[in-house]
Each structure stands twice: as C-alpha cells, then as structure tokens.
C-alpha cells in the first residue's frame, strides 16, 4: 500500500474506531490517537520527500501510485506528491491535530462531531494527494458537505442561515468547477488520443485556446469561490463566525487553501494561455479582496468576524500572488497558504478558548485579559504579529515573497495593483493592534473576568503546535521555500 493512501485510510479507520467506542471520553482519545498517527505519517511523508529529492530524484511527482477505476472513462485513482502538496499535507495534519484538542470540551453529540470533523479532514487530505481530476473533485466535495452539519448543529449565532449559505455557495463553486473539468477532459486529447483526467498527462499537451477561453473562467472561479474571491467571498464571514472553533480552524486554515491550490494546480497549470490572457480580470478582483477584506475587518466588533474578514484579505493575497505567474510570487503564495493556515487556525482556536471563558466575542465587552489569562494573551499577540507580517514570523516571509514577485512585473497595471495590495499591510496593522489594545491591554473591564483560569494542558498543546509552525517558518523559511520553489518549476515552465 502506498504511503499516501494511508492519509485517507487512517481517518476512515479513526471514524470506524469512533463508531465502535461507547462514551465521549473514549471518542476523544480515539480521535486524538488517530490524528496523532496522521500527523506522524504526514511528517514521514515530508522526510521521505526530502530524502528522495536529495538522492537526485527529479520526477515531477513522487511516491506515485495508480489504480484503474472507471476504465471506459479512463478514470484512475492516482496519487502522488510534489513539494507543494507535501507542505499542504503537513499543514493539514497540524491543523487537524490542533483542532481535535481545541474541541476537547465539546459537549453535545460528541461522536457525531468528531466523525464529521475527521470526514472533512479525509476530504482535504484526499484532495491534496490526488493527481486525477475526478478523484480530486470527489474529495473536494467530501470536504465541503460535512461543514453543513458541523455548523448547523454545533455552531452559534445565525448558524442555520450561515451553514446553508456556505454550503450552497461552495457547492455552487464546485458546480462551475465541474463544468470546467468536463471542458478539460474532453479537450485532453486534441490529437485524437484517449481522453484523460490525469493532471500530469494533460499538462503534457496543449488544450486548444478556444476551449481554454471557455473553461478557464469556470475552473478558476469554481476554485476561487472556496478561496474567497471577491465578490463570491460572502459565505466566509458568516460561515466562519457561526462555526464551532475546530471547524473555523480547519475551514479557514485548510479548506480555503483548497481554492488557491486548485486554482494554480488545475486552472492555471492546465490552461496557461487563457490564464495569462484573463489574469488581469482576476488580479483586479483579488486586489479588491485583499483591501476590502482588510477594511472589513477594521469595522467589525465580533472577534470571529474580524478574523473571517482578515481571512478574506489573506486568501485574496494567495490568489493575487498565484496570478502574478512568476516563481517568487508563487512561492510566496504557497508559503502564505501555510502561514495563513497556521495563523488563522491559531486565531480561531484562541477565540474559541477566550469565548469559552468570557462567553462573549464582542471586543468592547472585554479588556485587560492579558492580566488574567496571560498564556492565551501572549499567544494572541503572536498570532496578531504574524498576521501583520512581523519579521521572524511566518507572515513576513510570505508577504515579502508575494510582493517582491508581484513587483517584478514592469508594467503599470501590475505595479498599481501591487501597491494597492501592499497597502493592506498597514490596514492589517490597524485592526490587529486595535484588537490587541482593547482586548488584552488596559484595565479589566468586568470583575467577573478576574477569576478566569488560564489555558489547560490540552489547550496549550493545541496552541503550541501551531505557534511552533509559525515561528519555524518565520525563522528558517529556506527549508520550506526550497521545497516549494523546485516543485514550482514545471508549473512556471508551462505557464511562461
């Protein structure tokens, strides 16, 4: 059995295990063990990948395996990884692991919660290892649907509305995507060969330009919905603020990255000519996403809404960087995906923990929390600083790469767009520092808060896992960016 397939099998086994055990405590333990093993496997894959590359393996994808599935349609279950997917797998494993511990005190219907959460994770892992568009699409939808149940049952606020909105918009995106995939499939053999869903094989041929013009927008927008592309981002603030902690973590941290990942792995990699023709439209849209998301975050009062809008801004930056179509910016895009994944998961975990103590998420009802819950407070500051791009933390590395790459374009259009997008850094600083000041510093607003307890062991475990990732990327980014850069080569070659 190929080691990559274990990434799908382990979660399924964990779900089976949860079904077999009796009470809530055992459920937690089984989930934690299952996802712990998953984390280990993910890092084993990272090291296997690195050692393969060191030993001189220059294949586009490694650790590949393939099974025939629907023969007459030439659909295969094909898996394989390159540096980008390896990085995303490691990110997912870390966030899922942290998410399990962040929902340690879930009360209602615990079993169902963990089953849905792990099912969602299965979809995400499956998506990142797939090299066949059919299986990729299948896993993509598997990752979206559990969200409905997760937000609907365990969410807060207008949860039913948010859950339905999020599900329908994301499935709407996947509907467009499906049309795009058909277009790719039926143009995958212009010389009359066998049609295929295999990404590597399609990348070897050139899809006719007329077909590209038709189907690139479908594919890119389809993935873009999940990547919070303006104006299709509206599910994100509602969905993230209504979702329970672990779901917000996983969704903003990982699921939104499916959009960015798919946008360049499928849409741009397979239809590069149309991509460079139409990039300008999407650059405008993503620039709006970046700035608009940041401005949106300034005026929000609810911690989760602030972070949800900040996610729109940061994920917009991923798509923005991808559309710049050069190596530096795209490296930045991938680092930004990972950095934002860790950072936003940290944010949502902290918000969940703070909410669990103060029972409010409104920033003006809180104050001086640093004095009573210093561990959570410091963690919040670290997340905030990473978010506004302080050197030494992951956000800086990502944004540097993105904006350097974007500025490599000499023409006015790209430069103006870049400058506008860069301004979001300042806006980000405004909303982050504002929250830190109101929430953590100053006098304690309410006497009731004095007796609050600081983080428990499982909360610390969850937070430290994420902080470790952020600091590691911030201090030693070269390991990660080297892996990414070399894997971007075939994509860049194809696009240019």
């Amino acid at each position: 059995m190929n080691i990559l397939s274990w990434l799908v099998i382990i979660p399924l086994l964990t779900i089976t295990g949860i079904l077999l055990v009796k009470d809530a405590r055992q459920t937690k333990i089984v989930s934690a063990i299952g996802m712990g093993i998953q984390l280990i496997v993910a890092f084993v894959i990272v090291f296997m990948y690195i050692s393969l590359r060191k030993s001189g393996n220059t294949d586009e994808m490694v650790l590949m395996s393939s099974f025939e599935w629907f023969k007459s349609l030439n659909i295969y279950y094909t898996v394989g990884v390159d540096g980008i997917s390896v990085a995303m797998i490691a990110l997912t494993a870390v966030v899922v692991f942290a998410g399990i511990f962040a929902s340690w005190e879930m009360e209602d219907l615990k079993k169902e919660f963990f089953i849905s959460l792990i099912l969602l994770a299965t979809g995400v892992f499956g998506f990142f290892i797939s090299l066949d568009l059919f299986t990729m699409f299948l896993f993509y939808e598997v990752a979206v649907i559990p969200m409905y149940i997760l937000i609907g049952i365990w969410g807060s606020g207008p949860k039913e509305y948010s859950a339905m909105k999020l599900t329908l918009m994301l499935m709407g995106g996947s509907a467009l995507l499906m049309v795009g995939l058909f277009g790719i499939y039926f143009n995958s053999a212009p010389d009359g060969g066998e049609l295929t869903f295999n990404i590597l094989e399609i990348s070897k041929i050139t899809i006719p330009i007329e077909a590209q013009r038709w189907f690139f927008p479908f594919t890119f927008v389809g993935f873009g919905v999940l990547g919070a592309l303006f104006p299709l981002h509206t599910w994100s603030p509602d969905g993230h603020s209504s979702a329970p902690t672990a779901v917000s973590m996983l969704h903003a941290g990982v699921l939104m990255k499916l959009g960015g990942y798919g946008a360049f792995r499928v849409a741009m990699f397979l239809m590069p000519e149309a991509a460079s023709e139409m990039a300008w439209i999407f650059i405008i849209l993503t620039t709006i996403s970046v700035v608009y998301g940041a401005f949106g975050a300034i005026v929000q009062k609810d911690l989760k809404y602030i972070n949800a809008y900040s996610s729109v801004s940061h994920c917009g930056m991923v798509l923005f960087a991808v559309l710049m179509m050069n190596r530096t910016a795209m490296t930045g895009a991938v680092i930004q995906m990972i950095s934002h994944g860790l950072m936003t998961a940290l944010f949502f975990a902290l918000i969940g923990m703070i909410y669990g103590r103060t029972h409010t998420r409104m920033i003006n009802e809180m104050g001086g929390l640093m004095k009573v819950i210093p561990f959570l407070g410091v963690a919040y500051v670290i997340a905030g600083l990473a978010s506004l791009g302080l050197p030494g933390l992951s956000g800086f590395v990502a944004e540097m790469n993105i904006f350097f790459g974007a500025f490599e374009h000499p023409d006015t259009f790209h430069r103006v767009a870049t400058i506008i997008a860069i301004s979001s850094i300042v806006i980000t600083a405004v909303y982050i520092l504002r929250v830190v000041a109101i929430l953590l510093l100053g006098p304690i607003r309410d006497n009731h808060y004095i007796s609050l307890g600081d983080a428990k062991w499982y909360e610390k475990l969850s937070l430290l896992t994420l902080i470790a990732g952020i600091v590691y990327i911030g201090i030693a980014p070269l390991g990660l960016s080297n892996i990414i850069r070399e894997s971007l080569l075939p994509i860049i070659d194809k696009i240019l």
Partner: protein
Amino acid sequence: MNPESFMIMRHELVLTLAFVFILVAEVFTGERNKEKIKSIAVALFAIVTAAGFLPAATGSLFGGMYEASGTTTLMKNILNIGTLIVLIQSYTWLGRPENRDRIHEYFLLLISTLIGMNFMISSGHFLMFYLGIELATIPLAALAAYDRYQNRSAEAGIKLILISTLSSGILLFGLSMIYGVTGSLYFPEVAAKLTSVPLVIMGFIFFFAGMGFKMSLVPFHLWTADVYEGAPVNVTSYLSVISKGAAAFIFIIILFRVFPVISMTWEKVIWVIAVMTITIGNLFALRQKNMKRFLAFSSIAQAGFFLLGFIGGNRLGMTTVIYYALIYIFSNLAAFGVVSVIAEKTGKENMDDYDGLYRTNPGLSITLMLAMFSLAGIPPVAGFFGKFFLFVAAAEKGFYVLVTIAVLNTIIALYYYLLVVKAMFINKSEAPIASFRSDFMQKLGLAICIAGIVVTGFASGLFEMIRNLSYGI
C-alpha cells in the same frame, strides 16, 4: 414455440408463474391463513429476482414482435431488484387489519404491472410496446386506489387512470402518423423507412408527449404530485421508481433504435424539456411540506436528469441512464422506505414532523440523510457518480450549456434536500417523533437500499458491465 423460445422470454414466464401461484395460493388458503400469503409472495419474488440473474437466452419471438437481448435482461433485472425492495418495504403495511382480505390483490396487481413493463422493454413492434404499456399502467391505477375507502387514494386512482388513458391516446395518435408514413410498426423497418418529413416530426412529438406523461416530464407532470400524495406510500414508491425507470428504459431504446434519423430534431426537444423539467421540478419541490409531495417533485426533477443521458444519443448516455436508474432506485426507495416506516408507526408525513428526528431515531435519520445526499449527488454516495457520468455523457456531445444549467440546478436541489437533513439533525422540536423500533422486514428493506447507495458508486465493474451491454445510435 419450442423450449428455446420459452427460455428467451423467461423473465415474463417466471413472473406469470409467480402470478398464477399466488392466485392459486389465495384460493386454497383458509380465512385464518391469509396473512401467510405475503410471506409466500415475498419469498417467491425473491426467487424470481434471483432467477433473473441466471444466464439468459437472447433472440426474438413472434416474428420480431418480442426481442430479448443482454440489455433488456439487464433492465428487467434492475426492475426486479427494485420491486423486491418495494415488496419488502410493504410487508409490515400489508399486515394491517384493513389490508388483510386483499393482500393477494396487492401482489397480483403489482406483478401484472411488472409483466407489462417487461414486455414493454422487450418489444420490437409498436403494438407490443403499446400492449405492454397498457398492461403496466391499468393495474397501477387500481394499486393507487388500494386504500379505496380513503377519498384521497380513490382520487389518486381515478386521476392516474384518466391521465394514462389520455396519454395512451396521444401516444397512439403519434404512432398512427408514423405508421402512415412508414407503413410498418416493426422497430427496424420503421427506423429504415423513417425520413425527416413534417408528418414524422409531428408523430414523434405526439409520441414524445405520451412518453412525457409516463415519465412525468414537465409540462406533462401535473398529475404526479396529487397521485403520489394520495396513493399509499408503498405504491407511490413503486410508481416513482419502477414505473418511471421502465418508461425511461423503453424510451431510450426507442429513441436510439427507431428515431436515429431525426436525432437532430429530438435533441432540441429534449434540450428544452430537460431544462424545463429539472428547473420546474426543483422550484416546486422547494415549497413542499408534505414528504410525499416533496419526493414527487424531486422525482420530477430527477426524471429531467435522465434526459441528459438521452440527448447525446451516445453509448455513454445509455450506460449512464441504466446506471443512474439503478442508483435512483436505491436512493429513492431508501427515502420512501423511511417515510413509509414513519407513516406506518406515527401517521405523520410532514417535514415539520421530522424535526429533531436524529435524537430519537438516529438509524432512520442517517438512512434518510444518505438517501438525500445520494439524490442530491453528493459524494461519496452513489448519486454523485451517477450524476457526474450523466453530465459527462451530455458534455461528450458538446451540450455544455445544458450541462451548466443542470449543474446549477443541482444547487437548488441541494437546498431542499438539505432542508430535510436540517429538520432531522438541526431543528429542535417540542414533541419529536418518539423513539421506536422498526421490525425486521423494514430494516431489511432499508439495509438493502443503504448497501446499494454506498456500494453502487464505487463499483466500477458494474458500470463497465452496463457499458458493455449498452449501445449508441
């Protein structure tokens, strides 16, 4: 007739034997043992279904009026499986005191409609086709009026019989025009002599309208919701699944075998009808509160999705229509099965009544959720594969606009299917349906459906087998 020719029409003969057996058994059982008939009949039908999978002979009989091929055998087997599930699901309901005296009627009527459908699918001549379709629909009207002392059921029966007669009349009128042009009613001869003259087009339109009534395509769908709501749940599930599946099967056979010459014409007709059927079915389903009406409109929309397999006239299209029919049988019967179990225990049929169902009856809720996801086309359950391949089949011939409309419609459909999931899992209820235990036969019926929903999608071998038996224009 010789022994080999008996083998060719084995499916029909075995069903007829079962029919006679039940009739005789009814005569020879005393008043006290009437209940036993249902066990005997279900067991007998299980044997019939199993017998269908024995290697079958192929060939034609009665000078080409009856034809049996691998394709028709496959279709008949699929219908048998569906009918078996329906019978298992009806088992408990038939045990009610008011049904005691007419248990045998249910089986006799049901089996005779199935015989009709089998003849219809195997027909090689329009007269045979017409006989089959009548044999399939007239007993159905009697079945719809099975609860004849309830006004709604009697009304459903009357509506169904009137509509069937009307649609048969329209169908025959169309066929008469085609006969007038070609001078024959044999499928191969009609296909050979058919030309694209206006009379043929007109005949085809009438034929299409007749079939539209049977498949409940928009704008010929108006009878559906009333009949589905009025008829007993188990009859409704039979109507919406088996009857519709059989109509889809023979429709695609006739389109591909008899009308390939005018395919340019029927492509356009089907394009419009498919868009209308899917969209209007979906929009009406949005507002339904009664589960049976809800499933009625959802099944109208599903019928529209079948048309996506028709439109290309390609081999992949026929494959996916048969494949999707199988998946649709499992999914819709699972949904109807749950509705029927709940109606049987509590008499409740409205969506509001399902609020909070998961807390009291988790098993039923999960079954219904899987069924809804399968109907909506959500992976990893089978509906996803079925829908995906239907879209591929239409896209293969370049109907991208149609595919886009259909794909966007799946989002509308997802909304109302999620409403059911929301009721069961998310809504809170003051007085939810109390926790109860289903009996063995109800569980068996649902278990078969769940197994079908989960396995059919991943079973690529099944898809390839169906493909080997399918053909394009």
